[in-house]
């Protein structure tokens, strides 16, 4: 129920700059995910918004208010912590009611709100339990419940799913998405897990070393990463990167990766004229490398010969770790593949989906298409 604007936020710990000139506008009802490897400053940014950390420079606005000098309790936010931080000496009911009690709500009002939240989260039967009697998933729900009873204008989540096992995480991810639609509030969510970012965020902010790398929707950052870091960070298994050279041959442009050459689709040629004979980094996602025998016929691509090093069947697909010349590559192929260890395989690369990055840091992506 509120817009959040972060202007030029910087935060030093001693002499280390944890967050550098962070600029972000978060619209009302958006689900923004800050994502990045550990130490990238995402949690620090969130804690600055919460008021748990003092900023070195910058301004934070929540709704119409500049909150720089407000303590956490006056910012109208609620936060869900990584370890849930439930009060161990209070029952689930008391945990959820605590914030309302401190704000001197009437007993009946508190009771109604707690029961309402408990119903939304399906924890009505746990209200009299102590946190230590709950499972991980239940604690997670109580922590969310404690946040929603207060009906704050912004929810802050700090890696809330990182202590859950894989199955439960998939389930809670969907539940949090549903909750967001139901409550229609602004959410700022921090995680190191790109899957969580992709699946839950309406807007993703990718950070590294305290700096924002890219802001966009999940599909934008996946299809058009601004640089090598974002390309490698988003997506699992990670994008394949191959040092290569753009060459012009027989009036066509090609990628020359030493052990193989691949023809670049003619639509992309116009963007790459300036790069001819330059060294670049050629990127291709594992799912854009298909087993030739099962590849869709429509794919416009070049094929390469490789030797299979590891076969990882996943049921609905097979991941192949292959070697082609001097390059180690990963491909996600059809489960019917006949690939066998140490044997050769022909892979088709979908050349419409290639990425070209500059050789020099910060390895910007070269534009090779008009975006829709």
């Amino acid at each position, binding site marked *: 129920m509120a817009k959040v604007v972060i202007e030029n936020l910087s935060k030093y710990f001693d002499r280390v700059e944890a967050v550098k000139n962070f600029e972000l506008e978060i619209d009302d009802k958006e689900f923004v995910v800050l994502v990045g490897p550990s130490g990238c400053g995402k949690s620090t940014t969130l804690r600055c918004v*919460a008021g*748990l950390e003092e900023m070195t420079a910058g301004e934070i606005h929540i709704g119409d208010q500049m909150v720089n000098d407000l*303590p*956490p*309790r006056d910012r109208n936010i609620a936060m869900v912590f990584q370890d849930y931080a439930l*009060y161990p000496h209070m029952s689930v009911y008391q945990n959820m009611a*605590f914030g309302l009690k401190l704000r001197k709500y009437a007993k009946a009002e508190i009771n109604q709100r707690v029961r309402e939240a408990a119903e939304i989260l399906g924890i009505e039967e746990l209200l009299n339990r102590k946190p*230590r009697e709950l499972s991980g998933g239940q604690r997670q729900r109580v922590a969310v419940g*404690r946040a929603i009873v207060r009906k704050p204008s912004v929810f802050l989540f700090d890696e809330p799913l990182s202590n859950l096992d894989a199955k439960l995480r998939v389930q809670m991810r969907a539940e949090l998405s549903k909750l967001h639609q139901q409550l229609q509030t602004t959410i700022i969510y921090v995680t190191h897990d790109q899957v969580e970012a992709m699946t839950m965020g309406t807007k993703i902010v990718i950070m590294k070393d305290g700096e924002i790398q890219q802001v966009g929707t999940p599909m934008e950052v996946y299809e058009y990463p601004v640089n090598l870091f974002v390309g490698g960070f988003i997506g699992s298994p990670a994008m394949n990167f191959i040092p290569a050279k753009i060459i012009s041959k027989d009036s066509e442009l090609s990628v020359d990766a030493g052990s193989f050459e691949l023809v670049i689709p003619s639509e992309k040629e116009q963007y790459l004229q300036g790069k001819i004979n330059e060294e670049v980094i050629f990127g291709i996602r594992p799912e854009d490398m298909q087993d030739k025998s099962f590849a869709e016929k429509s794919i416009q691509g070049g094929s390469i010969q490789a030797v299979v090093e590891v076969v990882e069947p996943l049921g609905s697909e097979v991941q192949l770790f292959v070697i082609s010349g001097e390059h180690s590559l990963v491909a996600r192929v059809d489960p019917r593949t006949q690939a066998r260890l140490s044997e050769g395989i022909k892979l088709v690369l979908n050349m419409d989906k290639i990425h070209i990055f500059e050789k020099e840091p910060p390895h910007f992506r070269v534009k090779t298409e008009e975006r829709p």
Partner: protein
Amino acid sequence: MKVRLSYVALIPFLVFFMFPLYWMLITSFKTDTEITSLEGIPLIIQSKPTLAHYKKIFFEEKLPTWFKNSFIVTTLVTLITMSISISAAYALARMRFFGSQPLGIGIFLTYLVPPTLLFIPFYKVVGILGLLNTKWSLLIIYPTATVPFCTWILIGYFSAIPRQLDEAAFVDGASYFQMLTRVFLPVATPGLIAATMFAFTVSWANFLYPLAYIYRHDEQVLTAGIYTSLIKGDVYFWGELMAAALVASLPVVVVFAFLMDYYIAGLTKGTIK
């Protein structure tokens, strides 16, 4: 069920704890004749039990006064200790200031400084303050032993409480004071109880300082009082000694009996999980 079984394993310690109590109890009801008799069996009363020793210590000796003195000193020392220790431990466990960790270690090391080393300087300090020969001297001296150890115990408990708990309280709308009284300290209860028990026991049972610093009977506390009045050279008034020691250990037994449950619960369950 599980808690019940835990108590069973405490039996050897109860025996170790109760055996002297029982011996003292028995001896305190024996007549002097029986105590000194060579045919006497230590753990059984053979002739008629007597209350003579109790009468003597309560009416002829200064025992009620000493008891009162001990009580005042112990209560005040425990209060002083806990106020200082809680503040110090909170500061050391929570606030990241320069050198807070070695400071914590230093506090513990202070506890290990042998009293012998401090005995003589303390004597002078107490003398300068004009507290020599009064029970108030103990209010200065005991905390030098209890504060470091209690602080050290509390640092351990406090650091085990995740910082996110404080932060959750702040975000929930708590002021600093509310966070402390409604979240932090309640969660640290087992640690507070353990530290209180330690402070209480040490100040109740200390022997050395009152013996050395207090000569006036009126100002004496229980432990030293018993020793000085009932052992003359190498003559031991066994019946009175036993009766007095028994009375002296009552408060400690009572404290343990009441708080043991919390103490064990705190140590076994752990509050943070």
